[in-house]
């Protein structure tokens, strides 16, 4: 068994999410699920319900009157936005933990994920690039593969970092060369197993290689650049540090300017402050 096969086999066990959450993700994916079905599925998990409502009431969403129930949230936010909130909340417990291998202390993975989700949305508005319905979710989940790959990165952290430093490679490429797989591919593998929408799986898969989108996935382009901005800003970065190679082709395609970079960084910081209370 190659290292890559070993990593895929070990990551295939669904120990990251409890069965009830997996079932919820399946229902969320069904476009025909009624508001009543969604409400029931969410409300049978009281912790999740409480956390979804906290998030809906965070300053980021800016509702004047508080959102009091799941039914209220559907009415005020629409099912599309509610799906994103539920997905974010359902995966956030594993993102709150420390991530081995990448040396991320508790909370940093979640912080980086939220920052990229906010950044992708804000950049889309600044550059007038329409994302997709799943932009926020894709931002939240882009690095999910690190949770599973971290254990293996930890064992080989020295050779990966040494290779990246010696050859001036992005960390993700060094992961691929040493382990036979990188966190983007492993993340897409997990996202697919968890029944996440295809658009999300695709963005998770290629967020480091956005040329693969070929201009057909503006949401993927936005997540890629938002990720670069958050890394640049030092928001939730670990062992991989600044070893991230942004695609010039994608920056050009989006029309990214110095001014937009600075505006987006400022907005990310503000958005993060507005969201963080909901996860504490």
């Amino acid at each position, binding site marked *: 068994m190659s290292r890559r096969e070993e990593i895929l086999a070990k990551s295939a066990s669904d120990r990251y999410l409890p069965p009830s959450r997996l079932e919820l993700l399946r229902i969320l994916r069904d476009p025909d699920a009624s508001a009543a079905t969604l409400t029931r599925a969410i409300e049978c998990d009281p912790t999740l319900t409480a956390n979804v409502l906290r998030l809906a009431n965070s300053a980021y969403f800016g509702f004047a009157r508080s959102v009091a129930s799941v039914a209220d949230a559907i009415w005020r936010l629409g099912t599309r936005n509610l799906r994103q909130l539920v997905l974010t909340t359902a995966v956030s417990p594993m993102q709150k933990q420390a991530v081995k291998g990448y040396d991320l202390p508790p909370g940093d993975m979640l912080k980086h994920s939220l920052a990229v989700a906010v950044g992708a949305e804000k950049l889309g508005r600044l550059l007038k690039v329409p994302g997709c319905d799943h932009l926020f979710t894709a931002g939240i989940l882009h690095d999910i593969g690190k949770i599973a790959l971290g254990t293996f990165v930890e064992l080989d952290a020295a050779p990966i970092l040494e290779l990246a430093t010696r050859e001036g490679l992005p960390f993700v490429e060094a992961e691929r060369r040493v382990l036979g797989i990188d966190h983007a591919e492993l993340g897409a593998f997990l996202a697919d197993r968890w029944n996440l929408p295809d658009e999300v799986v695709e963005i998770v898969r290629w967020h480091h290689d956005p040329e693969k989108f070929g201009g057909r996935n503006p949401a993927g382009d936005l997540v890629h650049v938002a990720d670069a901005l958050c890394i640049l*800003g030092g*928001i939730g970065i670990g062992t991989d540090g600044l070893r991230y*190679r*942004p695609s010039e082709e994608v920056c050009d395609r989006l029309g990214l300017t110095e001014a937009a*970079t600075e505006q987006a960084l400022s907005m990310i910081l503000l958005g993060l402050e507005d969201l963080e209370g909901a996860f504490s």
Partner: protein
Amino acid sequence: MPAKQRIIGIADLAASADPDEQLVAYSLGSCIGVALYDPVAKVGGLLHFMLPDSRMDRKRAETRPALFADSGIPLLLRTAASLGLEAKRARILAVGGAQVLNAPPSLRVGERNFEVLRKILDELSLSLDTAEVGGTVNRTLILEVGSGKAGVRTPKGETKYL
């Protein structure tokens, strides 16, 4: 070893005269940490700014002056002066201002941060004693208030004193 660590997050600053305290700015990428230390007054200060120029968003500069170099540096100087620091006596250090790999011009905010920092200090007739900036490495800046020792730590884990 100083017992107390005060973390200065992005868009934050602090000054201290507590000899047991350490001021720390973690994960400086393109952001810059500016440390001041007056060896006579034994007062230190640290600013962790993210962006060069507050003309981009005046309102934000009012609520979060430490977000920008041009509004953060004067505030850092005033805050440290209120504890007795004299800018002319102080050592001034800058750490950070790095880039990601092969960064296109639109993403070179670290370079702009450093240019503007130097310009502002110049206008105040102050200058940097040491700078550890640029490149593609993230850094952590530590200032020990008791001794005035300033260190920079890279992901490899060694601390280099400046």
